[in-house]
């Protein structure tokens, strides 16, 4: 009995680790290729002389820092804008709900159901008319609007979890609405809201549809830069890998820390 269950456990571990390795292999492979010389990069060998040449090439030979800067501005800018737009209404709906609150929330969610491709053409023209095309501000706005329903929903659920008595006690002690927000709500909802912010940053960082269609050069974030790299005929593979590794690494670590929020945020609380 014991022996067979020990074997079963070993089998389980082997299978679990084998599948994990299979899924992770492509990411492992860019990490390996990033440290190869361009000559080694075109062979699948794992034996090679590690070098940082590819990284040096990325930093000196391309506009990489421009793309990194754009990605950072878009990811953080859109998240901040999103919060500014989302917090007031989430506060209102959580603490002063009306009969309309539920349908308002659902309506906000339903705006997320619009496939981007359905509004691609008008947004493309509107962004050109408003001189937002190929600007960081333009991408910040698009990403903030795309993520706004998620932000409202998450902030709403975190606010709803705050015990109502605490706010009342604060009000009896004479706290103004602003003080109430800053001294009572902020510390209590901080963990939830900061992981929501991480989720929004990840989503904006990885957003590709609008980044590819609404930028040309000046505002191109990393997603667009990577797409523009044509490493055909086995050339520049190390360089592409180095650029990709830097673009993906930090955000993946962030993603690992926000797993739970990710499930909650992307399913709008239907799965917790």
């Amino acid at each position, binding site marked *: 009995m014991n022996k067979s269950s020990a074997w079963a456990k070993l089998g*389980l*571990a082997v299978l*679990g*680790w084998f*599948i*994990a*390795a299979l*899924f992770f292999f*492509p990411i492992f*492979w*860019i990490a390996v290729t990033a440290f190869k010389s361009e000559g080694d990069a*075109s*062979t*699948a060998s794992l034996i090679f002389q590690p070098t940082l040449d590819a990284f040096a090439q990325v930093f000196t030979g391309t506009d990489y820092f421009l793309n990194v800067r754009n990605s950072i501005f878009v990811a953080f800018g859109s998240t901040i804008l999103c919060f*500014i*737009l*989302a917090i*007031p*209404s989430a506060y*209102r709906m959580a603490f*002063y709900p009306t009969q309309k609150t*539920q349908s*308002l929330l*659902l309506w906000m969610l*339903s*705006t997320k*159901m*619009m*496939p*981007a*491709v*359905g*509004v*691609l*053409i*008008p947004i493309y023209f509107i962004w050109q008319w408003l001189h937002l095309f190929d600007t960081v501000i333009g991408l910040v706005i698009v990403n903030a*609007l795309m993520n*706004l*329903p998620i932000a409202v929903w998450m902030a709403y659920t975190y606010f709803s979890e705050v015990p109502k008595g605490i706010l009342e006690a604060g009000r009896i002690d004479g706290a103004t609405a602003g003080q109430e927000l800053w001294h009572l709500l902020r510390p209590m909802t901080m963990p939830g809201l900061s992981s929501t912010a991480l989720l929004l940053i*990840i989503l904006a960082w*990885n957003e*590709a*549809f609008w980044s*590819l269609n609404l930028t040309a050069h000046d505002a191109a974030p990393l997603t*667009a830069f*990577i*797409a523009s790299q044509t*490493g055909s*005929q*086995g050339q520049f*593979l190390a360089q*592409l890998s180095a650029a*990709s590794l830097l673009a993906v690494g930090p955000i*993946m670590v962030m*993603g690992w820390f926000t797993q739970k929020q990710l*499930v909650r945020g992307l*399913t*709008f609380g*239907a*799965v917790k």
Partner: protein
Amino acid sequence: MSVQSPPAALTEVPGPIKKIEPAEKWRRLLMAPTVVPLLLWMIVPLALTIYFSFIHYSLESPAGNFGFVGIQNYQFLWSDSRFGTAILNTVIFLVSVLVITVVVGILLAVLYDQDFPGKNVAMLLVIAPFFVMPTVSAQIWHLLLMDPIYGVIGQFLQAIGLQPVDWLQTYPLPSIILIVSWEWIPFSFLILVTAIKSLDAEQKEAAAIDGAGPFTQFRYIVLPHLEKAIGVVVMIEMIFLLSIFAEIFTTTKGGPGDASTTLAYLVYSLGINQFDAGIASAGGILAVVLANIVSFFLVRMLAKNLQQNA
């Protein structure tokens, strides 16, 4: 609402329900920063897409631009051979990715629900692909893995004496389905493993004591428990997959020919490449209609969920 109701009515109804306190007026304003931008984001582009789809609007042949053409754009799309292919490709793509991600997601959720050494780290590795930006995923597979000469798969095949294959040229749509599945299996896995954890362990033990084998347990306890989560996965993926674009743009550009052109890519290439906003908009409207059918069910389910929690 009740602002205009006569004061007589107010006195008849006891309690503060009908009266609006001054603070409430200010609180209503708090909704504006969310509602106004979302309303604009919803209505303006959609109205324009509908409008464009009924006019002639081409940057290449601007004569007669903005003239009303009725359903000509839709008729043009209908008669364009690329449209039929794109619809077929979209359906094949959607169904394949959904089936693959859900089935593999369920199997992985069951596997990683068990305990084994290093399980948590292994799980992190499995979900990692979801955090890779779509263009990087596309480039990894395109250039580092699937390339017939320089890719790992090709070199592996050659090493064991087989002929390397140019996957994206020979099997364009299946290759893209594979790439997108690799990105989205972690998503369905993450949701399903979260859902499976909430399953009552006692229920499974009770079933085991009653003599239910692992398959019977899976069929009659685990699967019904996951039903709602599976529904959520299918609907959310559907919305995202309808607009999948970067993976195609970075690898095949819809080709060879139109073998990997989906509805989203067709709208892009008609509108942004060929500058025909009218016809592209007609294609966009069809995508919206498709998505609305799906989202109708999703919103209805979430509404039920809200009421249960309230």
